[in-house]
């Protein structure tokens, strides 16, 4: 029987594995050494791999990414940690102007096998700037790949696959799910990184989500089943590239699609999903694609975040709106 591990522990195991397997990998970030990261994702790694492979950095996010770019030019495979979603913006310039474009600008001569790990999303009662969902900014940028695991098993495999990718990968970790547990069989063979997955079959409506909202959608599907509504749930896993094939195959069965994310709806990932699905399988749709997500406000103070974030009821409200057509 496989052991049960938390999502944070699964990430820790994945990082240990890549550090063992590839001498060119190294971790860099704030407080990732002795402290083991504020979420303990890098716990114990500096002790075992040393300060040159698990590098505590100055508090400068642009510096983290900018030096990771330089290390990658030298042939390293840096895995950078941004401590919280809301702190990635000082690094935005280096990510968008350099990390994303270096390969293309160099005519393919300089690959950028860099992973940027970012704990993201709300629901943990945090102070401001610690609960944001900035994934659309990065997915909008050509040259980057953007993924987000929803569970410990995916976290373990997807992080290793992201490190193996020769493209820069922005790896969004669902921080409120860090302590979720699942059985992890490290001898299994993972599926491809850049594919979405149907995690619950259903025939009446499709729910698509990624990261922290997958669990919420699965709970919504369970609740809906009690009322006789069979919801199919897709864990997108990858945001860029978007796996439109899996989405359309599902919509061709169900005729309805609701996209859920914590990020604000306006120009969010759901907007792109809606546009793609509408273009590709318009005649299969029985209703418009419905988006459920955050509002067009700054992330609110934590005492009202429950009203801001999609929960089971808001997801089902979205499903009801789709089914009303």
């Amino acid at each position, binding site marked *: 029987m496989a052991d049960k591990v938390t999502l944070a522990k699964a990430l820790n195991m994945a990082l240990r594995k890549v550090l063992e397997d590839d001498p060119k990998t190294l971790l860099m970030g704030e407080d990732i050494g002795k402290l083991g990261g504020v979420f303990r994702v890098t716990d114990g790694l500096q002790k075992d791999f040393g300060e040159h492979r698990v590098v505590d950095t100055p508090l400068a996010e642009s*510096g983290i990414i*900018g*030096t990771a770019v330089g290390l990658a030019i*030298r042939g390293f495979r840096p895995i950078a940690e941004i401590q919280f979603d809301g702190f990635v913006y000082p690094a935005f310039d280096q990510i968008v102007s350099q990390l994303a474009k270096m390969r293309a600008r160099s005519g*393919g*001569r300089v690959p950028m096998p860099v992973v940027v790990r970012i704990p993201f999303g709300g629901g943990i009662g945090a102070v401001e700037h610690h609960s944001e969902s900035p994934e659309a900014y990065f997915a909008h940028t050509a040259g980057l790949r953007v993924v987000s695991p929803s569970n410990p098993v995916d976290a373990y495999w997807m992080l290793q696959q992201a490190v193996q990718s020769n493209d820069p990968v922005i790896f969004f970790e669902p921080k409120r799910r860090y302590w979720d547990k699942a059985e992890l069989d490290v001898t299994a063979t993972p599926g491809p990184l850049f594919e979405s997955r149907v995690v619950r079959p259903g025939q009446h409506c499709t729910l698509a989500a990624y990261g922290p909202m997958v669990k919420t959608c699965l709970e919504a599907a369970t609740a809906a089943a009690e009322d006789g509504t069979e919801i199919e749930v897709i864990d997108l896993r990858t945001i860029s590239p978007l796996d*439109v094939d899996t989405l359309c195959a599902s919509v061709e069965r169900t005729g309805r699609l609701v996209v859920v994310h914590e990020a604000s709806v306006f120009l969010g990932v759901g907007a792109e999903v809606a546009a793609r699905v509408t273009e590709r399988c318009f005649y299969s749709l029985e209703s418009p694609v419905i988006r459920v997500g955050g509002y067009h406000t700054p992330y609110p103070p934590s005492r009202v975040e429950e009203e801001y974030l999609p929960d089971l009821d808001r997801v089902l409200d979205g499903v009801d709106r789709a089914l009303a057509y």
Partner: protein
Amino acid sequence: MTDVVSHVPPSAGQELVQLLTPEGLRVHRDDYDVDLSDEELRGLYRDLALARRLDVEAVALQRQGELGLWPSLLGQEAAQVGSGRAMAADDYAFPTYREHGVALTRDVDPLKLLAFYRGVTNGGWDPNEKNFAIYTIVIGNQCLHAVGYAMGVNFDHARSGEADESQAVIAYFGDGASSQGDVNEAFIWASVFNAPVVFFCQNNQWAISEPLEKQTKIPLYQRAQGFGFPGLRVDGNDVLAVLAVTKAALRRARQGAGPMLIEAYTYRMGAHTTSDDPTRYRLASELEHWKLKDPIERVRSYLFRNEKADQAFFDAIEAEAEQMAVRLRAECRALPDPDPTSIFDHVYAEQHALVDEERASMAAYLDSFVGASH
């Protein structure tokens, strides 16, 4: 219209390492000096002359519509040639977008520089073949790349257990960039990680229209002290002094003594780029003042006066420069525009469905015009 005032840089009276005066007189120092053969001296003159001729040709090509833009290096030839020639073959340079003279010393075909500014590529050369990164337009970004690369040198040493001298890295930037967060972060990181990097600031007095006073209250080289490493100011128009101090700084970095800041005090004699009009913000008298400190004339004067080169040598260099310019002009004008669908080629290393789809879509759209008389 705002007043155009003559500006007195916050530099006056500061110590300047100089080995060749503007009049071409050789000065010797105990701390920094060079001992070059006549042939090496002539080689530096040749580098300087070729860099200037390249620049003249590029400006002309831009004026004739063959380049989209050109940032002139006029006046900064010594800073670039001196620092470029200070590098060992294994050293690695991270340039801005104006380092044409450095590029020549790294054996980058100047046609590649023209291709970049013609708009046929956003890169153009293999950085790891020349140990010369591709040009960086975003001000200051490259300083962090240089530090990361230099940290990698240290990490590789830590892993291999070798303590031998190996590579040093040089990061180019300007007085304007010294205000950027990335440059200041680069200073901090280099200091904390004891990275083998030399920060080479070409203080050309102007960041487009903004004089040095808009960037700093103290001489730039003095900033290094606050970051925990040495800084010095060198006469950026003196190729010998630049060569001497940069060699020393690179050697020091290779030996594990960490970063150093060199402020090459120079002057941008031309416009910021071909899109700029410096007459709106600075006086012609300032340019006249700096013309007396020309980086090439002093070498010529020194070589000639000391009979290290004769008129035949200078004539031969001029002919060679002219030949280069003629070749570059012809080859630049013959550069083909890229195939439109090639923009998709290197966005990702691995297959990406959206890119594949859009490439096919563009190709199909373009093909729809084939044979059409529209």
